């Protein structure tokens, strides 16, 4: 894996200069902001009634305006939003090389193809962690500004760990999206995969099979995928890690062996 450090620097420069990671961050920021808006509505029933339908929906989704409700909603938003938006970011980081036909510049150079693939995964992880940390912090900030009741240190730490865990597991699965974006030579295959896995996760979690489906595990941990919320076993974490590692290995092999005629 020659030239991993150079490959990481190249991928960081490209992603920093692009609008896509910033748009993903901005889009993900909507999750805590909308959650906060629901809390404002629930906190003031008069305003909620004046808003009519929106107030009724907010009540259905969150119940009461307090810290446990906000952190529960935020956990669900982080799990589902992360699955879709991180897949969008990953599809772009891998797929743009084919869509923009810049792949040629990454071939027949001293930095190995394996290093490039691993560097892309590392940069996805770095952006994912940074965006995720920002979103979780923003959620806590919104809750503090709204002035919700029911705060406890234990609740906050548990929720933060669950959201962090869900984000890390979602990031760990991204090499599979990168593999599909590479094989599909563009953005579409990775995005389609993200939509499919989110839908499948919801169904399998409701049926009680969520812990055996890697893409449902982060949502289970965050409490977004049905009645098994928060109940995941080490085997499920190992399944996610193994799936991500297999995706990364296959992506490296594909880059090393596939014909690049574009």
């Amino acid at each position, binding site marked *: 894996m020659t030239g991993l450090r150079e490959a990481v620097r190249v991928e960081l*420069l490209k992603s920093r200069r692009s609008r896509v990671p910033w748009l993903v961050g901005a889009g993900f920021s909507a999750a805590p902001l909308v959650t906060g808006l629901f809390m404002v509505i629930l906190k003031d029933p008069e305003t909620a009634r004046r808003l009519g339908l929106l107030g009724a929906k907010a009540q259905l989704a969150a119940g009461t305006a307090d810290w446990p409700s906000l952190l529960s909603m935020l956990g669900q938003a982080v799990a589902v939003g992360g699955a879709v938006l991180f897949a969008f970011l990953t599809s772009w980081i891998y797929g743009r090389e084919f869509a923009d036909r810049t792949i040629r510049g990454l071939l027949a150079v001293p930095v190995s193809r394996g290093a490039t693939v691993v560097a892309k995964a590392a940069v996805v992880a770095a952006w994912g962690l940074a965006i995720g940390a920002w979103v979780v912090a923003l959620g806590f900030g919104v809750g503090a500004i709204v002035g919700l009741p029911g705060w406890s240190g234990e609740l906050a730490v548990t929720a933060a760990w669950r959201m962090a865990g869900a984000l890390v597991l979602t990031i760990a699965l991204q090499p599979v999206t990168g593999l599909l974006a590479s094989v599909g030579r563009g953005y579409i295959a990775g995005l389609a995969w993200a939509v499919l896995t989110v839908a499948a996760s919801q169904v399998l979690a409701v049926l009680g099979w969520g812990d055996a489906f890697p893409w449902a595990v982060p949502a289970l941990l965050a409490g977004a995928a049905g009645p098994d919320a928060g109940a995941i076993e080490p085997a499920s974490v190992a399944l996610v890690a193994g799936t991500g590692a297999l995706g990364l290995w296959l992506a490296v092999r594909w880059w090393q062996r596939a014909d*690049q005629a574009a």
Partner: protein
Amino acid sequence: MSGRAVETDDLTKRYAPDVLAVDGVSLEVDRGELYAFLGLNGAGKSTTIRMLLGMIRPTSGTARVLGEPVTAEAPGLWSRVGHLVDVATAYPELTVRENLDVARRLHRMRDRKAVGRVIDRLGLGPYRDRRARALSLGNLQRLALARALLPAPELLVLDEPANGLDPAGVVEIRELLRELVHQQGVTVFMSSHILAEVDRLATRVGIVHRGRLIEELDSDALEHHRDPRLEVDTRDLEAAERALRAAGRDPRRTGTVADPLLELRDPRSLTAPEEIASLLVASGVPPVRLAIARETLEDHFIRLTSREATA
């Protein structure tokens, strides 16, 4: 530094059972040569170039570059090769300088000043801080050439390097390649559609048609094609050929299958073509056309590929 710059043996690429892109191409390019690889669209040029760069795996046959077998992962080899494959591309969100800095890092070069030097060399100074998405096609091509030249390569592999360049740009790149080959000993393996440029530059030409290497011309053969000759057409070429031989001349069959000709290259025929006209009239095979011609590489290429197409 051992081995030839480029060496292929029976190199073949089959994309599907009925799609044979490259068919047993064997060629050798010595160091310091400028080898032009010519062919019509779809002839197999780009596939061959990609196989030389490890971007496409051959179905059979082998390729060696700078004495080493071509593999996808060969850091030592690829640090000595610069390439421009097909249409010039760059990261649109990065500036010219940043795009070249990406290439510098991918070539694991520590010398940051190399980027500035290649920018100056390719005349990209006024655009160094312009994003690639705002570059004209010609400047994008210059950027791609700059990227190929950045590692100071021993071998440059260029697929249509003059794409998108205006006439002044074409001349500039021609002079740059000439300088690289003649003064710095760089080997250039290039494909081009601009045959007049190739004719002026190449030390050797390979013509590929329908995946097969159908002819190679060295510098003597290229010079020979540029020599003037007297082209003769009559209604009975065999009788005309006999009459000319009987008169001590040395006519040769040329032209296409559909339009065969005789040609004479001896100085006397070229300086006094009227003697040939008189001789043919006296022999009962008067010429229907008699002209002094000088075949360009373009003429030769068209004639050869059309002959292959009708064969």
